[in-house]
């Protein structure tokens, strides 16, 4: 098994500047997190807003530098704070963002959206760029005819397919997905999750999947990392974490997640009927 990405005691601090009445302070957004993801596997990072999961995602996606710790991509240490990223390294890690309405340039045609990564990072000739963009459109389930259309002509689910296609243009080994299905309707969410599963199998991709939705995580993850206030409070295989969550925060998260179990509904309905009978 080859490890695609590995983090060792990653930290990230933000300096909040002071003002006349307030002292400057440091916020520790990520407090020393270690993890590893193998080829073809999915690590899900779970947490609520403010847990630092998106900060960690941006560090793994080589967008923001870490304040401390070591990040290795395919065994090579990478630190974007001290050295420029090589094109080759840039190609290895790609990201898909949460909001497909904000992550596509409204003035850029779909074809250009897909060809731009090749233009910037490779020396691929124009005809080849176009061929590969069309090929990728088909792979994510869109017809080639959409090549010359603009993002506003697409639904949220279709846009997310386009964003995924763009991320795959450089043949990355690691995809960082920051809440990729949170903005989508349930039925569309199912389609996009299926697509992600297909693409992972086809390209042997490693996924870092950021989510707040435990039911999605349970479906897609191999390993789970639960974050709370910048710390990894729980880490393990999906089976282990879901079968026996050890940390109180994980248990709280599980308890708060609504369940659609018929027996639970039956108990709740019975309780409400008893309550109503008592008040009449």
């Amino acid at each position, binding site marked *: 098994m080859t490890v695609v990405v590995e983090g060792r005691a990653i930290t990230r601090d933000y300096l909040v500047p002071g003002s006349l009445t307030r002292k400057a302070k440091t916020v520790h957004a990520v407090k020393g997190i270690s993890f590893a993801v193998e080829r073809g596997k999915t690590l899900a990072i779970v947490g*609520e*807003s403010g847990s630092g999961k998106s900060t960690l995602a941006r560090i793994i996606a080589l967008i923001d530098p870490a304040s401390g710790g070591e990040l290795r991509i395919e065994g090579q240490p990478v630190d974007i704070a001290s050295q420029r990223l090589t094109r080759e390294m840039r190609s290895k890690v790609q990201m898909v963002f949460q909001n497909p309405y904000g992550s596509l340039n409204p003035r850029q045609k779909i074809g250009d959206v897909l060809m731009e990564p090749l233009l910037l990072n490779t020396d691929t000739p124009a005809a080849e760029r176009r061929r590969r963009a069309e090929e990728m459109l088909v792979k994510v389930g869109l017809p080639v005819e959409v090549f010359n259309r603009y993002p506003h002509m697409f639904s*949220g689910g279709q846009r997310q397919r386009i964003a995924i296609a763009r991320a795959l243009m450089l043949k990355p080994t690691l995809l960082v997905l920051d809440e990729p299905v949170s903005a989508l*309707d*349930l*039925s*569309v*969410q*199912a*389609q996009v*999750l*299926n697509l992600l*599963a297909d693409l992972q199998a086809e390209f042997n991709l490693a996924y870092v999947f950021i989510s*707040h*939705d*435990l*039911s*999605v995580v*349970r*479906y*897609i993850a191999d390993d789970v990392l639960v974050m709370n206030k910048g710390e990894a409070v729980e880490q393990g295989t999906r089976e282990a974490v879901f079968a026996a969550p050890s940390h109180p925060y994980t248990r*709280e*998260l599980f*308890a*708060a*997640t*609504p*369940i*659609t*179990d*018929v027996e*639970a*509904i*039956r108990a*709740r*309905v019975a309780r*409400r009927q008893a*309550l*109503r009978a008592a*008040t009449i």
Partner: protein
Amino acid sequence: MSILNIRNLTVRFATSTGSFTAVDGIDVRVDKGEVLAIVGESGSGKSVSMLAAMGLLPDTATVTADEMTFDGQNLLAMSPRDRRRIIGREITMIFQEPIASLNPSFTAGYQIEEVLRYNAGMSKRDARARALELFKQVGIPEPEEKLKSYPHQMSGGQCQRVMIAMAIATGPRLLIADEPTTALDVTIQKQILDLLMKLQEQTGMALILITHDMGVVAETADRVQVQYKGKKMEEADVLSLFEAPKHPYTRALLSALPENATGDRLPTVSSFMVEPEVKV
């Protein structure tokens, strides 16, 4: 005994490309003290039908219905003045984005006192005292302090509690909650849903919960109405709906839930419904 009864509601919007039917012949009935969930994906017309009942749609909307009565009073034939006596007092509403629902320029206390003075006819002094009581009732920590806070100084969950306090301030007999927890973290969602259910049980008001989340439906509703593309697909009590969904679309929604996944792929709506326009 129904409190709100709408029959054959149709809402059309005039657009530059012609008329668009957002709600197509929908019936909505909610009984006194009942929790009705209206569930559907985006574009199902679930919000629009309730906004129509509230009279909150813009001028471009044409609303027609065979019947629209609140507690026996005909909302369609009523003068705007009489209607305002009901809307905002007897029927109140809370929305998805709690922070955006509040006016950023005024304190939370000012905004709830405004409701109490205009809609409940209280004096300034009485309104202040009642506002504090309501803040305590909806579980806002440090209520005295929070009355003086502006929306941006509070979290999303706290803002939603303020919205709920404003919505129950006039002792409504029907509260319409439009995706009240969609913008909130799952642990906060649980607190808000628990609060809404507690208030519903204490006051005996009817509650219409508009949501896209089957988990929220399972944990709150007495009766459920499933909408798709402006049409009603199915209506059932909550237990029957989850135990034995009748309509293919409902089955599709339930099986698209990742927690109900069997095997590697999630069924999508298209695998259940060949012709999406079928009517029950």
